[in-house]
C-alpha cells in the first residue's frame, strides 16, 4: 500500500511525460493525408508550355512519377527547387508539376528564372485539382506508383534528408515492382 502511494504518482507522471514527449515533437502542420494508398484523383488540365495540350494522371499509367505542387507566389518552393532541378538532371523519375492557383505568364516566368525540372507542368488556375488532391500547403510532393496509386505525400518543401531517406528509396522500390 505504501509502495503504491509512491509509485502511482510516479507512474502517472511518466505516462504524462510520454504523451507530451510524443505530442510536442510532432509537427501540427503535418496532417496525415487520407489519400496515401488510394488511387490518384483524376484531372485533365492544360499544360503550362502549351495550353492546347492536356495532361492527367491517366496519361502517366505504367510508370512511377512524382507530382510536385508549386506556384510562382510560393516562397518555400524556392527552397526546394534546386533539389528538384538536380533530381530531374539525374533522370531517376519523371516529375510532373502542378502549378497551383497561378497564371500561365507568372508560372512560365518563374520557371525560366529558376529552372524547369518538370517533364510537364499543368496549370490548376482555380485550385480544384488541388482540393481533390488534398493540397493545403504548397509545396507538396506526391509519389505515384505504376498502377496510379499515391504511395507517399510530402507536405512542405523537400529536404535533402526526405529525398534521400524516403522519396528516392520508395521510388526505386516501386520501379522494381
Amino acid at each position, binding site marked *: 500500500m505504501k509502495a503504491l502511494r509512491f509509485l502511482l504518482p510516479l507512474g502517472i507522471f511518466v505516462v504524462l511525460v510520454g504523451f507530451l514527449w510524443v505530442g510536442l515533437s510532432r509537427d501540427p502542420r503535418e*496532417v496525415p493525408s*487520407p489519400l496515401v494508398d488510394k488511387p490518384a484523383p483524376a484531372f485533365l488540365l492544360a499544360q503550362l508550355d502549351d495550353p492546347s495540350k492536356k495532361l492527367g494522371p491517366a496519361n502517366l499509367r505504367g510508370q512511377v512519377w512524382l507530382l510536385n505542387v508549386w506556384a510562382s507566389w510560393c516562397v518555400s518552393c524556392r527552397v526546394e527547387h534546386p533539389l528538384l532541378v538536380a533530381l530531374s538532371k539525374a533522370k531517376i523519375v519523371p516529375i510532373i508539376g502542378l502549378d497551383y492557383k497561378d497564371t500561365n505568364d507568372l508560372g512560365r516566368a518563374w520557371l525560366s528564372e529558376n529552372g524547369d525540372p518538370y517533364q510537364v507542368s499543368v496549370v490548376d488556375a482555380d485550385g480544384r485539382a488541388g482540393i481533390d488532391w488534398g493540397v493545403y500547403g504548397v509545396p507538396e510532393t506526391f509519389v505515384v506508383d505504376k498502377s496510379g496509386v499515391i504511395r507517399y505525400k510530402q507536405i512542405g518543401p523537400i529536404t535533402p534528408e526526405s529525398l534521400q531517406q524516403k522519396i528516392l528509396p520508395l521510388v526505386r522500390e516501386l520501379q522494381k515492382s
Partner: protein
Amino acid sequence: MKRVHLGARLVASLLFAAACGQATAESALDARLKNLEEELRCLVCQNQTLADSNAPLAEDLRREVRELALQGKSDAEIKQYLVARYGDFVLYKPPVKSTTYLLWFGPFALLLGGGLVWYGVLRRRARRGNGGIDTAPAETPHAGEQAERARKLLDDSTEP
C-alpha cells in the same frame, strides 16, 4: 380604371412575394452553410473554422461547399467529401471510432477514477471515526506565553 389598379397591385404583391420567397430560400441556405462551415477546420490557419478564415484555401473550400450544397448534397455528404481529401482533421468534432475512444471517453474515465479515489478516502476517514474532521481546538503549547508577548508589544507601541 379601378380594375386596372387592382390588377397592378396584385401583380406587384405577387412579385414582392416571389422575391421574398427567393430571399428566404437564399438566407436559409446561407444559414445552413454557416452552420456547416463552423464545424469545419481551415487547414491553413488550423485554429480557425472555415467560416472565420480568410485564407485563400478557405475561400476555395467555401465555394466548393456552397456548390455541393446547391447540387443538393446533404451536410453529411459534404463533410464526407472533405474528409476524403483532408482526413478527419477537417472536422472540429472528431468522429467516435476506435482511435478516438481515448479522446471521447478518457475525460469521463478520469472523472470516474477521481470519484472512486475520493470515495475511498471518505470511507477511510469515516472508519477512523468523527468523519475525519478535527473538532478539538488546536492546542498550542505556549499559548499563554504568546498572549503575554502580544500584550507587551501593544503596550509598548501605545506608550510613546
